[in-house]
């Protein structure tokens, strides 16, 4: 699974992009977030408030219960501020 982080999520986690292989029971976006929070204080801090975390799977916005596959590109980022 490919993970991308943007804006202050990227800055707090300290990673822009990584490949991970979460355990098979990590089947949804919500489960992935919980799992990521356990990977270290940077992750825990960046992802502590899910209200300001947006998730895209394969470049489309998804909700917390969206299912995940090993081939997915998952992006985590704060609410957008372009325009």
């Amino acid at each position: 699974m490919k993970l991308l982080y943007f804006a202050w999520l990227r800055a707090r986690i300290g990673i822009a992009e990584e490949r991970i292989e979460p355990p098979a029971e990590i089947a949804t976006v919500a489960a992935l977030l919980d799992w990521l929070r356990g990977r270290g204080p940077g992750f825990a801090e960046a992802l502590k408030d899910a209200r300001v975390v947006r998730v895209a799977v394969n470049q489309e916005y998804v909700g917390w219960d969206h299912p995940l596959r090993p081939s997915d590109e998952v992006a985590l980022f704060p609410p957008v501020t372009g325009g």
Partner: protein
Amino acid sequence: MIRVQCEDFDIGAELEALTRGKTGIGGVTSFVGLVRDVAGERRIGAMTLEHYPGMTERQLADIEGEARRRWPLEAVLIIHRYGRLEPGERIVLVATASAHRQAAFDACQFLIDWLKTKAPFWKLEETPEGPRWVDAQASDDEAAQRWTKD
């Protein structure tokens, strides 16, 4: 048409290319977003726009498609820049062309409202107190929200 680029753009040349030869167009509405030197109380030296290559283009194309479904548009153009921009510089151009001006106005406003809440761009401001990520604004969510009531 969608373009995501680092370089500046020439509004006159872009609108000319957009409408050339399409003599059924009665009106073109456009919106240009510029970098301001103040945001609330803060003075801004410059800002850097980060985006999510690939998803940005997809989201903008989706937004364009939605506008074309809702209004009879002869032409649509969205150009959004990324990278470091100083006050006064152009950030974004949204232009809509239609036989009638009301459709052009409504579609243009819809596009910029949706772009501001859907397109994956983030602004990092340079302030006297150091760099600062811009917060999403509730007013932008509300502006986008009104288009879902139809």
